[in-house]
Structures are given as C-alpha cells and as structure tokens.
C-alpha cells in the first residue's frame, strides 16, 4: 500500500518536500525505510504520529490514516 508520509522540520528540508510516498505496512517498517532514505537520521530520535498522536510501539498503518514523521521538537 502506498502511504503518504508528512515531514516536518529538518526532515522536510532534507526531502525537499512536505510529503513523500512510500510502501510500508507498519510504523517500524516506516522507520527502517526512512533510515535508508535519510542516513543523517541515524543520530536523531524521530517520533511517528498516527492521526496526530505519537505512537509508542509498532502500529499497523491503515488506509486513510494521517502519518507523520517528527524530528525532535524545539519550540518555545
């Protein structure tokens, strides 16, 4: 299943686009795929949000969900 991934912060800048498409079925697969696409992520702890909630363990990705990859926050 082709999944649209929303990117933010430095990830958006690295990709040169706010979203990318990838073929993954769960969030662990997404993290592995992103590590291949963005080797610079090796030293960063990124979070995955499914429908705007950060997930704490591997989660299946279903059609229609809003998936985002979030680099470390630095607001405030």
């Amino acid at each position, binding site marked *: 299943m082709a999944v649209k991934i929303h990117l933010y912060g430095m990830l958006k800048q690295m990709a040169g686009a706010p979203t990318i498409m990838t073929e993954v079925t769960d969030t662990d697969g997404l993290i592995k795929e992103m590590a291949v696409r963005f080797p610079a992520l090796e030293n960063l702890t990124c979070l995955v949000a499914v429908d705007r909630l950060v997930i704490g363990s591997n989660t299946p990705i279903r059609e229609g969900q809003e998936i985002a990859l979030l680099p470390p926050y*630095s*607001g405030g």
Partner: protein
Amino acid sequence: MNQKIKNIFVTGAISPAFIGEKIAAHQSKTAIGGHSIFLGQVRADSRTNKKVVAIEYTSYEQMALEQMTVIREKMIEKYSLTCMHVYHALGRINTGEICLFVFTSAPHRKAAIDACSETVERLKSDLPIWGQEIFEDDSFQWKINQPA
C-alpha cells in the same frame, strides 16, 4: 476532549502591546488573585563563532493544537485555574523578540506560578514545533531544546 480547540499560533513576534492587552482583559475577572506569566525570548546564541540573529518557527499545527488542548485541560483541573492562555509565534522571530507567552490565572499565586511553570515544560516536550536558528550570514541550523 471536552474543551474547544483554541488556536495558540500567531504569525510573527508577540508584541508587548498584545501582552498588555491580554493582562488588561482580565481586570473584570475579580475571582483571580494571582497571574503568572512566562515570556520566551529569542536569544542571540553564538555557535562556532557565528551569532544567531533569528529563529524561524514551524509546526505541525493541528497536532500541536490538539496536544495543547490536552495540556490545558490537565493544567486547569490540576491547579484549579481560573483561566490560562498560551501563544506561540510562527515564522521568523528576531533576537530579542518574544516567541512564547504563557499566562495562567488563579485565585492564589502558588497555583498560578506552578501551572505556568509546568505548562512551559510540557509544551516544550509535547508540542510538535521546530525552530531553525538563522545566523548573520544567512546560514542556519536546527535548534535543539536544552533542559530548563
């Protein structure tokens, strides 16, 4: 989630006049005995001999607003606040300008102060907001939040 989602984002720096207006708007709420305010200001840090002149803030806005609604509900309940307001700047904020305004109000000072402090820590750790430090020569690096 019972509370309405409130927008916390403002484009550009938060002006002292805006902060003053928000304080003045509370004069009619006479159950309040204490306010606590935190103002985040963009600091002119130096990194490898280059000086920060601004921070460009971006956010995953809908998620940030939903997370802030959760934090607001918890803070109001935990500290029995009369009210609380949070504003975060987006876009380019120059050094010396205000990027964050947290305003908590309660019948007594301790609740207002503790709630303000906890809200600042929680929003820094939980809200998907990113700052890009811009240097004098227009180069940049992504900001990393430091512990309090």
